């Protein structure tokens, strides 16, 4: 049994196990995550050496076949998932585990891996459903009324989204008679096909919480438990974004209309999210809104990338996804620690605490740097390539928007960081630092990772440059 199917099945198996024997859940889950990371690394190595890896499951062949394909993009996404997963598992394994966290998280992991690897629309749809349900479960884990309410809205929106996707897939089948990725190119030929594409895209936009369909997201991400919100914000939405990117890649020139729409929505999301983040009063809410803004930036990047067969701009989008995943996970973990240490997460209260800023706040600051996209973080490298490409194509208005978004993100993140630099009269001389916890290590590790990724940006880029299957 090959790495590919292993990397999909292992987490699902672990989900079953963890559900079966709760006492050992943490151990099993952590082990599974570690193994998953190893597999992902190995897969990446294979892709780097021998190009894309393909495997057909059962003896279904295209056009209906269930084939797993691991190309460069999928490899990057898998690695991203593995890294974030490691940190989150570390934090969760150390902290008091809520019943049900591990099965849900393992399911999420499996679904994500499946999503990144599957090369036909039907598998994608299935993986999507699993992902959605698991994510809702993660949201609801917190058990508070807000969380439950958020989970309900999330599920509703998710269902509508997946129904749209389903409708789209069915239409596309009726048009092209096939469900593998080749279908996308054919779809762009006919009106009905493009309607199908549009429906799929609409569904994905809902699930990716892309403006203006992000209404469910801030509540969900801000009311979930830290580890859960880290997963939701860093990985789950990326699943949908990955599909959008994949559609635009497969569609080539034909999906230009999708890209234009994405660019506009992305710009809107960037500004709207930033604006709400500027006005947010609670730390978690601020971070959630910043996710809206960042997703907007990524969508913008996908949108302006132009025909991927001509430009490599889409790689910038992939880089942005990667750095956002690391940074945002770090940020949510850090926020969790901050709220735990202070007992609240009101921004206005951050600088009046009888407590010296701790490692978590430091982690938050570093994550903020890479979210804003200052050098030498991966976010910066992503923006660099994006803007450089846009200059070549003369998309000066997009550049202006991106810079505006960057400035806004700096503004709202500095709101928090400046308060994390508390000291002087607000802090009692006797105040102490909060003690180190594993969560701090996880957050700090992820944040530094996001920071240093910029210096090693060559690796993901070479991975991305490997041709598709």
């Amino acid at each position, binding site marked *: 049994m090959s790495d590919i199917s292993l990397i999909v099945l292992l987490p699902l198996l672990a989900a079953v196990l963890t559900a079966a024997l709760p006492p050992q859940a943490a151990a099993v889950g952590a082990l599974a995550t570690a193994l998953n990371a190893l597999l992902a690394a190995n897969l990446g190595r294979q892709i780097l050496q021998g190009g894309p890896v393909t495997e057909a499951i059962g003896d279904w062949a295209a056009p209906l076949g269930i084939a797993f394909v691991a190309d460069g993009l999928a490899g990057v996404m898998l690695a991203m998932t593995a890294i974030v997963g490691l940190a989150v598992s570390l934090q969760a394994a150390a902290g008091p585990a809520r019943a049900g966290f591990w099965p849900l998280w393992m399911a999420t992991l499996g679904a994500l891996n499946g999503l990144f690897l599957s090369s036909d629309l039907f598998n994608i749809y299935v993986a999507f459903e699993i992902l959605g349900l698991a994510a809702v479960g993660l949201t609801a884990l917190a058990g508070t009324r807000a969380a439950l309410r958020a989970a309900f809205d999330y599920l509703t929106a998710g269902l509508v989204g997946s129904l749209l996707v389903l409708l789209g897939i069915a239409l596309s089948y009726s048009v092209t008679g096939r469900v593998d990725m080749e279908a996308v190119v054919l779809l762009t030929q006919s009106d009905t096909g493009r309607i199908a594409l549009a429906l799929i895209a609409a569904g994905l936009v809902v699930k990716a919480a892309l403006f203006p369909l992000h209404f469910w997201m801030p509540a969900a991400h801000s009311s979930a438990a830290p580890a859960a919100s880290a997963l939701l914000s860093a990985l789950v939405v990326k699943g949908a974004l990955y599909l959008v990117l994949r559609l635009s890649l497969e569609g080539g020139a034909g999906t230009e209309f999708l890209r234009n729409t994405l660019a506009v929505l992305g710009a809107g999301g960037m500004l709207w999210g930033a604006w709400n983040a500027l006005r947010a009063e609670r730390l978690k809410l601020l971070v959630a809104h910043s996710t809206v803004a960042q997703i907007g930036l990524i969508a913008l990047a996908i949108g302006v990338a132009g025909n991927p067969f001509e430009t490599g701009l889409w790689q910038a989008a992939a880089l942005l996804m990667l750095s956002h995943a690391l940074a945002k996970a770090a940020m949510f973990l850090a926020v969790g620690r901050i709220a735990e240490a202070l007992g609240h997460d009101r921004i206005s209260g951050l*600088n009046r605490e009888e407590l*010296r*800023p701790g490692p978590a706040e430091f982690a938050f600051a570093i994550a903020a740097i890479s979210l804003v996209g200052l*050098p030498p973080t991966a976010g910066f490298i992503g923006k660099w390539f994006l*803007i450089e490409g846009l200059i070549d194509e003369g998309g000066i208005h997009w550049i202006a928007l991106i810079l505006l978004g960057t400035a806004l993100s700096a503004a709202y993140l500095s709101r928090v960081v*400046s308060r994390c*630099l508390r000291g*002087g009269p607000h802090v009692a001389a006797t105040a102490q630092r909060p003690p180190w916890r594993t969560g701090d290590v996880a957050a700090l590790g992820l944040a530094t990772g996001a920071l240093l990724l910029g210096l090693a940006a060559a690796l993901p880029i070479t991975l991305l440059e490997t041709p598709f299957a």
Partner: protein
Amino acid sequence: MSSVLPLAILMTSLGVAPVILMMPDSARRLRTGFNLAAASLKVALVAWLSYEVAHGASFDLRHSIAPGLELHLQADALSVLFLALSSILWLLTTIYAVGYLEGGTDRSRFFGFFSLCVASTVGIAMAGNLFTFLVFFELLTLATWPLVVHRGTSEAHRAGRIYLAYTLGGGLALTLGTIWLYALAGEVAFEPRGVLGELPQTAPLALTAIFVLLIAGVGVKAALVPLHGWLPLSMVAPAPVSALLHAVAVVKAGAFGIMRIVYDVYGVETVQAMGLAAPLAGLAALTILWGSFRALTQDDLKKRLAYSTVSQVSYITLGVALISPVAAIGGLAHLVHQGIMKITLFLAAGNFAEGEGVKTVRAMDGMGQRMPGAMLAFTVGALGMIGIPPLAGFVSKWYLGAGGLDAGQPMVIALLAGSSLLNAAYFLPILYRGWFCPVPEGATPGRRLGWMLAIPPATTATLVLAAGLLASAPFSPLGWTRFIVSLEYL
């Protein structure tokens, strides 16, 4: 070896920073020892480096982080000038800061970011291409922010916000300009007399726009009017920070950036051919006068010094913008001279505040009797700023004036004259009060300052005197700048 030395110089502060950040505040002795050891080691390494460079050795350290992007550290004569300045003054300022923050809070944080700040300065000095420069430039912005807000008061936070807004805005402009230039010209390495090749003929408009963007970007840190608003506000920072901000790190990074852009990216001929030199010079002149005018009206001692920085730093820009080797000598020399003079002033001002609680000009009465040593250092610095020989400032002004004539701009003489008058007008009253006004009755004798606070200003004051008196000696700042200019202009 040729790559190890720059790395070592960088690491003596970049590697030090996290360690210090992680130390508990209580580990004072350990932290101080570590910090000072690193600073002294850096000075030694820089001395070694400058010796090597003077003998024609070349240093290179490259790390490719993405296709078309690489971090490149190098050491040419210009870098060495800035390196020597920052490393020596860092050592002094660190000693001073240790004494200044005695018993303060968050000292690990402070010294950690202090080292980070100098690390980025060193990186800027050794940056071999525009991308590397940009990286360290932004790092500098971030590393300085916690220092500005260190006191934690709401005023400090306000100043920090505004500082961040200005510098990040400038950073965006710089980033855009850099990317644009990379898109046009590919890798933009720093080479004497420019790297643009044929571009000025093919894409003059784009290059002009890029020049404006880049200068705006670095101009924020160089406090060019109208981008200077953050500087006086960030005076709320502790004295060593102000000293470092003004003398070495931020402001100088901006000025240094202007040099790099004019000399090593565009090249003087190009800049002049594209007609970009005159506006820059005009801006510098405006800044010189405006800063001095604002300084006249400040009663807060540090704010007066801040505005004087605004005006003084533009001497450097002026020296660069007047396309003339003589003026260039003046400007480059002023990079160092202004540094040592201004740091003297700030350290002395810090001592006034620490020892006697004196923060305003009108409270300076009788300072000559209350703290003779600090007042003497302050006097040397102030007279140097005015340009009184044989102090350092005189040398720079002399070459700037001659350079102005050389560039066919006699007005520069008038500018220097006016600026000197203004400098005198806002510095001499302080000296007058300090030396000749009686100690106000009811002035309680302040606390005795330790050697850590007393030695650094004395040292820098001596440097000011030496830099002027021994201007023609080998390895004086002037001599070194002559060497640099001989490379930039042929």
